[in-house]
């Protein structure tokens, strides 16, 4: 009796073993199989870090031409130091459906949009300013009721959206907006920049915390990028500029576009030679035929008060001044959006700058995409060896991945304590080379405000359409200047003046005094001013009178400029320039944490409504009172695609198809094997996890057997 029984009992562990072992084996088999699968799939995907996916959250590729075609005509009148610009966007519906179109486009970051007109057939509908949400509601109501409506919203100070609803089949609706912007000035050269395309933006994942943040990021990445090779010109643009600055114009140059110039010297007309695709900034530069003006003073008298703009330029000649020792930190962006010409321009600029380091200077190089590398742990002396190392480091950079700019900026700022020491006579300069295609501009400005210390941040905007708002803000708050390099051939020409600025400190002890009157001046925080670059002040007062005195020290020598405010030339643009400058101040205070969101928003809205300009909180809306879309007809919405900015590399940005990559990997391996002797790679897996797994499986099987025995006994 005991015999058969114990035999039966003995079967239990055997059964357990029979079940347990396969389980242990199966665990291995499935992981191994999965791993093998992965190996074959990933052989291509793991070639390098994935691009594309990282770069553009929500930014689509336009695979076909849009149903609504857009043509843009830009008309500019430059008088004195401001430009008045009319942008006419013609939305032509080529489909047989009722359409709503939305177009994302850039405007100068210091422009003030104050007029919207919508032209439908023979009728002109004039738009009006409303708080952002109210304007949106007005637009949506008109859209739902079948009436034509146009809406202009600001997404960023340099990025706007036009929406137009109920464009009938075959119909064309014109949206005309007008803005004014100050003319740029540096070293006697005046410049007008008309951005034509908003480059695709990278949204750092950590900024997507709230629903509002997601909506905000979506707004600046809404436009699909038209796939290259569609062969048709997208968003054709024509430009005409009337240049009457009040003096004879010399050295008139269109930087990136072919133009025809006519008219007398004091009143030139510049026309684009035909129309161009909206894929890069239009830049016009000129000088005065006589001596470089060092002062500009303009005023506008309104019922609300008097507005005055003064631009005072410190003397440009600094060649006799010695260059103090410097600590320079170069930060170079090698993210996917830099692919193509931009990367080459950035590298060339960096190499150029490295060439000017002297042995008494300290330096470091930081590169970033969605990761970052510091060449040295902290700044090192610029010995030929170290500079050479930096050259090779720069030469080997390749564009890929996302644009996580914040860590790189923080690293550059934080280096201060260790690097060139805390010797105040050492100039600490950060040269930041990037296209600035990010959606978290505010974070960047806040970082400079918080950790800026004695670092001066110089922005070098790279590429055909950099984010000039980010550049301007970062360099102003950071106490540096902004330089734009838009073409590979420009590197030397643009880096020279920058390096000149870098070799001398800013005007020290800068102060502004108003006597015999009162002025509410902006910017409230005086920026750092460099030789040859004007300090632009905009003021508001009840009654313009008295004198304005700007003084400081340049290279140890006192410098002073006194201006009689009553002598200002009349200009109709100053009020809007003041409003825009005031909003800049508020946004800076907000970024630096001096003003909470609610108060800042309210103040921006108040100024926007008062001056009737488009701001982050106010939009222009125009509604046709006559219904046009018949009830029952469906409305189709379309985000109009944008061009890829000139010189950008589509494949780097959006990633290539995986399949060709896999073939390449196989191919290159084979050809290499033919050229060189093969080398056997050792088995390099300890497999300790496998041992652990097996051990655990056996242990569990044994314990399960015991449990079985116990239960049987209990029963």
């Amino acid at each position, binding site marked *: 009796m005991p015999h058969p029984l*114990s035999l039966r*009992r*003995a079967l239990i*562990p*055997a059964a*357990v073993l029979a079940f347990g072992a396969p389980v242990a084996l199966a*665990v*291995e088999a499935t*992981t*191994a199989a999965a*791993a093998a699968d*992965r*190996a074959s799939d990933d052989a291509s995907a793991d070639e*390098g*870090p994935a691009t594309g996916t990282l770069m553009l959250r929500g930014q689509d590729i336009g695979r076909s031409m849009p149903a609504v075609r857009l043509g843009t005509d830009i008309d500019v009148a430059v008088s004195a130091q401001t430009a008045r610009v009319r942008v006419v966007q013609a939305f032509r519906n080529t489909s047989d459906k009722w359409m709503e179109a939305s177009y994302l486009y850039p405007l100068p970051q210091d422009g003030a949009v104050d007029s919207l007109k919508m032209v439908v057939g023979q009728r002109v509908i004039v738009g009006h300013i409303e708080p952002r949400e109210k304007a949106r509601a007005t637009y949506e109501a008109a859209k739902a009721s079948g009436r034509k409506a146009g809406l202009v919203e600001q997404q960023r100070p340099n990025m706007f959206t036009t929406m137009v609803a109920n464009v009938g089949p075959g119909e064309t609706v014109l949206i005309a907006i007008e803005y004014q912007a100050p003319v740029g000035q540096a070293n006697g050269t005046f410049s007008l920049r008309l951005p034509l395309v908003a480059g695709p933006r990278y949204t750092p994942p950590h900024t997507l915390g709230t629903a509002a943040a997601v909506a905000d990021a979506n707004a600046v990445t809404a436009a699909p990028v038209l796939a290259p090779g569609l062969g048709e010109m997208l968003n054709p643009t024509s430009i005409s500029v009337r240049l009457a600055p009040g003096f004879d114009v010399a050295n008139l140059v269109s930087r990136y576009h072919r133009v025809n110039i006519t008219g007398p010297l004091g009143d030139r007309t510049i026309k684009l030679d035909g129309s161009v695709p909206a894929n890069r900034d239009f830049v016009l530069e000129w000088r005065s035929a006589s001596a470089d003006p060092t002062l500009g003073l303009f005023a506008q008298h309104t019922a609300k008060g008097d507005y005055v703009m003064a631009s005072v330029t410190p003397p440009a000649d600094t060649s006799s001044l010695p260059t103090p020792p410097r600590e320079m930190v170069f930060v170079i962006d*090698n993210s996917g959006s830099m692919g193509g010409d931009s990367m080459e321009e950035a590298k060339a600029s960096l190499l150029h700058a490295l060439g000017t380091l002297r042995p008494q200077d300290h330096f470091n190089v930081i*590169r970033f995409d969605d*990761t970052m*590398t510091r060449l040295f742990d902290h700044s090192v002396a610029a010995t030929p060896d170290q500079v050479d*190392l930096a050259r*090779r*480091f720069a030469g*080997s950079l*390749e564009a*890929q991945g996302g644009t996580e700019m914040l860590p790189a900026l923080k690293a550059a700022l934080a280096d201060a304590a260790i690097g060139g020491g805390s010797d105040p006579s050492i100039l600490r300069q950060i040269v930041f080379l990037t296209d600035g295609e990010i959606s978290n501009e505010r974070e960047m400005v806040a970082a400079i405000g918080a950790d800026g210390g004695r670092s001066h941040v110089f922005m070098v905007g790279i590429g055909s359409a950099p984010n000039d708002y980010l550049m301007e803000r970062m360099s102003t708050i950071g106490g540096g200047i902004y330089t734009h390099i838009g073409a590979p051939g420009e590197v030397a020409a643009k880096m020279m003046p920058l390096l000149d600025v870098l070799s001398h400190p800013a005007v020290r002890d800068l102060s502004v005094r108003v006597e015999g009157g009162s002025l509410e001046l902006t910017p409230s925080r005086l920026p750092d001013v460099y030789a040859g670059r004007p300090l632009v002040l905009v003021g508001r007062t009840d009654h313009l009178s008295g004198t304005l005195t700007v003084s400081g020290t340049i290279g140890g020598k006192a410098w002073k400029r006194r201006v009689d405010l009553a002598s200002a030339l009349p200009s109709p643009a100053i009020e809007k320039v003041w409003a825009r400058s005031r909003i800049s101040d508020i946004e800076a205070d907000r970024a630096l944490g001096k003003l909470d969101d609610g108060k800042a928003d309210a103040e921006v809205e108040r100024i926007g409504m008062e001056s009737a300009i488009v701001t982050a909180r106010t939009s222009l809306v125009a509604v046709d009172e006559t219904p046009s879309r018949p009830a029952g007809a469906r409305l189709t919405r379309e985000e109009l695609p944008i061009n890829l900015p000139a010189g950008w590399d589509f494949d780097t940005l959006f990633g290539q198809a995986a399949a060709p990559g896999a073939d390449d*990997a196989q191919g290159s*391996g*084979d050809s*290499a*094997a033919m050229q*060189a*002797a*093969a*080398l*056997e*790679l*050792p*088995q*390099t*897996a*300890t497999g*300790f*996890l*496998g*041992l*652990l*797994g*097996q*051990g*655990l499986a*056996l*242990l*569990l*099987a*044994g314990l399960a*057997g*015991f449990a079985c*025995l*116990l239960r049987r*006994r209990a029963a």
Partner: protein
Amino acid sequence: MSRAGRLARRWRDALRGRGVAATLLLALCLGGFVEIGRGLYIPAKAAVAQALLDHAFEASRVDHRPRKPWPWADTAPVARLSVARLGVTRIVLGGGSGQALAFGPTLLPAGARPGHAGTAVIAAHRDTHFSFLHDMRTGDVVTLQPREGKLLRYRVTGTSIVRWDRYAPPDDTMGERLDLATCYPFDAIRSGPWRYVVHTEPL
């Protein structure tokens, strides 16, 4: 009766007359423990060895002589490999037997010497010393401090996955290079024919 005593009696009762079964099950459990122990021993050995190697390497840097990390070792440290971004430092062993891989990354004798023309190849286990290869990416800076001579800096140019017998590194006409090799896929349990190679070139 105490609780422990009751439990012991229950066990005795349960197992009475089932000697064969109990013995088999006990063997199964013991086998499990042994396997787990063997499994844990590997990473422990890898970690301890690196600490000893680090010490030996520092010492040999001072007196410029190869120094054994422990008396019976058949290999000696030749370089220190670090990747600053990942905060990783490893002592690299020179040649030796296949056992050397258990203690640290090994410079393959078939490859070039670091700092000389040709491709130097360092291999290590994917689940201990070289698990960090998984996180490396193009642009990372790899530094190699040989026992003698100046610090060498490399930049990662790319990665590839090759069969163990299809790997052909650039020869000395292509200049100085460093490749880091390990097994692939990283989380496989069985070993397979694939190797993951990180390619770098000098800065």
